[in-house]
């Protein structure tokens, strides 16, 4: 039996919207793992000044002598920065596509199934981006001490404690953590769906629950140190 088949059109999988979504998902998972580790590190604050400062110093010496001083940290910073760039680029590209797909809006449109977290994904993401820029300026690049007192030498513990004794700064962080909760709750689930691990109803439901559990763990963990400082439990 002789059959003729025309070759599949030369379309590239990697230039599709789903490929962009995969970029969002993979970089998003990198961030989710990072915030878990970051949250764990912050909790060291509860163990006292020397434990926290030792941990901060250890971040610079991980992997020595195989890695140079600050080698692991620099590598992580580069990976995170690249991931951030890709995440933001893919997000804005997809946002633009979605806007272009419905230039004439509905006069009346109801949201039937949309969750609160999914609704705030895009603007919440923009807010988190601005927050991350401020957060890096405050604690990494410039080390602004909004508490006003000068910190003797390089003492991350004092910087953190001084900063979070300022009530309005703590409020900014609490709001940012609520935004992070929403972003993670939908993001973790959505990434699972995008990589294609939710091919049945049970797995789909599990991914949704995982998103909320992971978001809760991260956000509660992150909020403990600043609130403990604000209420004077840590000095």
């Amino acid at each position, binding site marked *: *039996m002789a059959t003729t*088949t025309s070759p*599949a*059109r030369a*379309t*590239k*999988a*990697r*230039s*599709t*919207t*789903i*490929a*962009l*979504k*995969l970029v969002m998902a993979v970089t998003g998972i990198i961030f989710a793992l990072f915030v878990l580790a970051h949250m764990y590190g912050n909790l060291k604050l509860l163990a006292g000044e020397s434990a926290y400062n030792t941990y901060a110093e250890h971040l610079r010496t991980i992997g020595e002598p195989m890695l140079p001083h600050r080698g692991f940290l620099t590598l992580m910073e580069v990976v995170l920065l690249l991931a951030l760039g890709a995440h933001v680029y893919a997000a804005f590209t*997809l946002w633009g*596509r*979605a806007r*272009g*797909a*419905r*230039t*004439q*809006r*509905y*006069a*009346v*449109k*109801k*949201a*039937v*199934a*949309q*969750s609160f977290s*999914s*609704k705030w*994904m895009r603007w919440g993401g923009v807010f988190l981006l601005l927050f991350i820029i401020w957060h890096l300026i405050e604690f990494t690049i410039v080390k602004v001490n909004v508490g006003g007192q000068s910190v003797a030498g390089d003492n991350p513990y004092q910087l953190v404690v001084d900063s979070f004794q300022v009530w309005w700064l703590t409020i900014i962080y609490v709001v940012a953590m609520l935004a992070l909760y929403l972003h993670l709750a*939908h993001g973790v*689930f*959505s990434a699972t*769906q*995008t*990589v*294609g*691990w*939710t*091919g*049945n*109803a049970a*797995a*789909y439901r599990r991914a949704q629950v995982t998103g909320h559990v992971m978001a809760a763990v991260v956000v509660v963990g992150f909020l403990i140190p600043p609130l403990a400082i604000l209420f004077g439990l840590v000095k």
Partner: protein
Amino acid sequence: MDITLKVWRQTGPDDKGGLVTYDVPDISPDMSFLEMLDVLNERLNDEGKEPIAFDSDCREGICGMCGLMISGEAHGPERTTTCQLHMRSFADGDTITVEPWRADPFPVIKDLVVDRSAFDRIIQAGGFITVNTGAAPDAHATPVPKANAERAFVAAECIGCGACVAACPNASGMLFMGAKVTHLAELPQGQPERMSRVVSMVAQHDAEGFGGCTNIGECTAACPKEIPQDVISTLNRDLRSALRHQS
């Protein structure tokens, strides 16, 4: 029952269009939504006015031809097609806004009628499947596990009405495409072209100008056939496999 309709009127593809208000008195609660529109159209005809153009065919909820945005919900407040929606789902004195599907890949032809050829082109892009033609094979010649057969049937329920696109905040066609891809992906007959098919269909979907999926679930909530969200997961997984196997 008496209702007030605000209907999108647009004389043609290039007309700007706008909402026009009509009072529709003495409607039976047992009428379907389309029958209510028929009654209004007969009156408009008698008055020498242009009747409202809308799509419909089988009127028994299986063809996927009808589809209206009714007060902000695709196919209205019930989970069914517009033709199977009855006026008893509304209250006496309600004001109902009726709009066409809104998505740039679904251009309005007239009033409430949109051109959904973009869906046909996505299906076409999927191409053929490799099976022997000729005498029909015995039904049990190619065994299919029950779970796969059932999922293929669930996906195959899609009637291509476009409610998923209409309800999606991103005007994405992923639920429709996910249903088509999953339908064949679950069956032995769909395997030979599985990877090339998903790439071609997604490329066509993007070329038509549909948005991307953000896993919000408005599509499934609007789908008269209750196509589940997990078909989009299968679509994503197949596209990811294609990424690995295609340079």
